């Protein structure tokens, strides 16, 4: 991108005047719908008014539309990444730039991540250049097992990143939760049950007096009302099989809970229970080491085995590295060629980073597939998107073509040759 275009994009970002959605058609593409189906040869996608109006083979392009010939390229829906810290962090180890933790805050469940999303953060620009168009941002490291209310965002270069604030509550119930609750899983479950009880009491008497022995601030307890009444999903981070079972058991006491399991390293050991419970999983992909005593059964076949057992599983919980989503998905395809391993078909694998997480997040009717009526989130790739060597050529979000320039691309341009010219490198911009 030229400097002028970049300045224009920056100006748009600063002035709050997002670029207008363009009506476009992308033709001759290897077209991926994102719903698990195989790629379509010579496919076309048409986007009008920021929405997909048609996608498939034999789609007629209306006259006068801007048409991009994607001959030799792949076209997919934008990637949807669930549970990441995008927008909360500039540099992980630079505290002032990092809003992903709040362990000294007086609140926990009430914390609302949508208040801190910075659409101009470089990690967003870099993830966007990697084809990520939507994300679920969470959790916060708080002083409690409750890690706050996550937000859904788009990665557009505009000032309005948040598409749904307070989309879910996030709770730690494994080793991390044990530590936060006072030292054991027993304590974590006691803290959780007490908190949900307090939320029920608030729900019953919103403005009334509270018990004298409450542990939560009113604000935190009130924040859990939508959880206990099933209006807001509860994302539960657990890894070991026993912890997953324990989490599923919560619905006996709190039947309205809308659970999502996050992490689930040993999910394959409880795949039938997960499938029977109809509880979706955002699984950390590819972990195959017993990194802790709650991950002893780790195997790369975890996702494939859960999917084969009928669990609604998508990839997620890779926090600070959303742009690795395609590589993770591609590795699950690789497993289909390894004896005794269980992977995903190409279509399933791509869906696991597009429509799959969109379904878990409850936004599959809006994003994650190139189907009529969905957002015009379109990514053009120079090759098979799940191949490590492939890269992104163009990105549209809501039909708006996105800048792919960022700190990294500017450095690349400057240092195409390391030698200095007539003036120092600092003049080369």
């Amino acid at each position, binding site marked *: 991108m030229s400097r002028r275009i970049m300045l224009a994009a920056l100006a748009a970002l600063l002035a709050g005047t997002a670029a207008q959605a363009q009506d476009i058609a992308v033709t001759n593409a290897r077209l991926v719908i994102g719903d698990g189906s195989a790629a379509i040869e010579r496919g076309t996608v048409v986007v009008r008014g920021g929405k997909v109006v048609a996608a498939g083979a034999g789609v007629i392009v209306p006259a006068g539309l801007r048409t991009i010939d994607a001959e030799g390229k792949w076209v997919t829906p934008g990637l949807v990444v669930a549970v990441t810290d995008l927008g909360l962090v*500039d*540099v*992980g*180890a*630079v505290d002032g730039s990092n809003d992903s933790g709040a362990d000294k805050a007086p609140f926990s469940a009430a914390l609302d991540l949508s208040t801190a999303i910075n659409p101009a953060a*470089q*990690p967003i620009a*870099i993830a966007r250049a990697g084809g990520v168009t939507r994300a679920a941002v969470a959790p916060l490291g708080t002083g409690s097992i409750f890690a706050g209310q996550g937000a859904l965002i788009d990665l557009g270069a505009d000032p309005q990143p948040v598409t749904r604030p307070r989309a879910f509550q996030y709770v730690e119930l494994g080793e991390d939760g044990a530590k936060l609750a006072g030292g054991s899983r027993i304590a974590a479950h006691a803290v959780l049950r007490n908190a949900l009880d307090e939320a029920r009491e608030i729900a019953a008497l919103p403005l009334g007096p509270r018990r004298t022995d409450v542990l939560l601030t009113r604000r935190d307890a009130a924040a859990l009302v939508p959880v206990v009444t099933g209006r807001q999903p509860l994302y539960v981070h657990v890894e070991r*099989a026993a912890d997953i079972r324990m989490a599923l058991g919560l619905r006996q006491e709190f039947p309205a809970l809308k659970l999502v399991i996050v992490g689930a390293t*040993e999910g394959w*050991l409880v795949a039938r229970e997960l499938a029977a419970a109809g509880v979706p999983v955002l699984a950390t992909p*590819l*972990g*195959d*080491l*017993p*990194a*802790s*005593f709650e*991950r*002893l*059964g*780790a*195997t*790369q*076949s975890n996702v494939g085995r859960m999917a084969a057992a009928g669990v609604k599983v998508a990839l997620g919980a890779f926090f*600070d590295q959303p*742009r690795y989503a395609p*590589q993770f998905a*591609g*590795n699950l*395809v*690789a497993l289909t*060629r*390894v*004896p*005794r*391993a269980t992977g995903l078909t190409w279509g399933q694998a791509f869906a696991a980073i597009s429509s799959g997480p969109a379904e878990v997040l409850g936004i599959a009717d809006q994003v994650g597939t190139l189907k009529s009526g969905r957002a015009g989130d379109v990514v053009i790739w*120079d*090759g098979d998107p*799940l*191949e*490590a*060597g*492939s*890269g992104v050529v163009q990105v549209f979000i809501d039909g708006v073509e996105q800048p792919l320039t960022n*700190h*990294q*691309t500017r*450095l*690349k341009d400057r*240092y*195409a*040759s*390391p*030698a200095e010219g007539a003036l120092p490198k600092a003049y080369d911009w």
Partner: protein
Amino acid sequence: MNPRSLLAAGAALAFAFGTTGGATAKDKKKDESAAVKAARDFDKNPYPSTYKPYPGQPVLITGATVFDGKGGQVDGGAVLLKDGRIAAVAGAMADLDLPAGTLRIDGTGKFVTPGIIDVHSHLGDYPSPSVDAHEDGNEMTDPTTPNVWAEHSVWPQDPGFSRALANGGITALQVLPGSGNLMGGRGVTLKNVASRTVQGMKFPGAPYSLKMACGENPKRVYGGKGQMPSTRMGNFAVNRKTWIEAQAYRRKRDEGKLEDRDLALETLAGVLDGDIKVHNHCYRADEMALVLDMAKEFGYKVTAFHHAVESYKIGDLLKAADVCSAVWADWWGFKMEAYDAIPENAGLLYKAGACVVIHSDDENGIQRLNQEAAKAQGDARRAGIVVPDAEVIRWLTLNAAKALGIDKDTGSLEAGKMGDVVLWNGNPLSTYSRPEKVWVDGALLFDSADPKRRPVSDFELGQPGEGDVK
């Protein structure tokens, strides 16, 4: 203990008795020279490798695409392993002399590479499970600890070794101390072979290395303790002071005046002698340039900068200094000194003619060094830098072997080298490919088709998923 070190120990003992026992002047002089001898002629290999290649049968792979590790590609090639060694690499029509009992493998549609080598691993010294009791990689009680040796921390039962073999085709790796210290200690190069002891994994004849670190880590660790170094200038001051001590120690040794061994200074003297290779964790270009001058100041060579996320800014300097950059493809932004990392780093270095090595520093990344390289290749291509597949494979094999000083033995498919070979089920630069078989010194140590031909560490026995595909 070998005879020489036994003699040295005896001499040291005699010296101890001599000084405490009120010896005559004549005896004392004699004993002093024994002490000097002991300090100079100590056993430099007191924990020697006990690794012995496992038995293998002659193997002929035919019809495969062969990347030889030194930049060559043979389509429809044949690779013959015999007596634990590479016996031949040839084109399709070659008439190879096959020993009796040769196992023939049809490699049609498959790929053969040398065993993959990771120059930067913490398998064993930060093993899984990563519990506090296993944190054995950083001796963070002193900013310079060249006296510690990573091999004394390596837990051979780390399940990570098997994952690196089965998924990454890793046949050799350097386990380094961490980067909390300016001089973190000696690294050790291992064969990726399961063993009860670390000695049973040590790569025979591999030189030792010294792990050094610039930048944020040492100054953060020691600044946090209220001691030096707390700044980058402090980092250099402490390093230089230590090198001055090492020079003095070496001079004393060479003048025959050294009477007491010092484990730390022995390691540094070994660096100054050129026997121990320096592997220097360093992110920023400006710091790497300063380290190169420090190496000149004290007369040592930096073999490789590790992580080296800004190497692309000084590819010309690195080429001139003949220093490798051991890099990731695209790690970025996790700390301030990683903020200028770019995915074209490897490609730009290649374009500048500097040495590129792809490394992991990660128990997961080591399982996918081939994909890391493929990412770097793709990003280079999009920047207009075309790196052929066979050259990219060199980043993971021969270049890595050179950085470790084991390139005479491994790192490429050349007759006479160790039979460290990976048969891949597709192009290793594709995400969809995995090792099908892995040989170390001609012994088949991983076979994806044979459930029993994969290592399962002691830790995994009786646990969920014992012997599972991983």
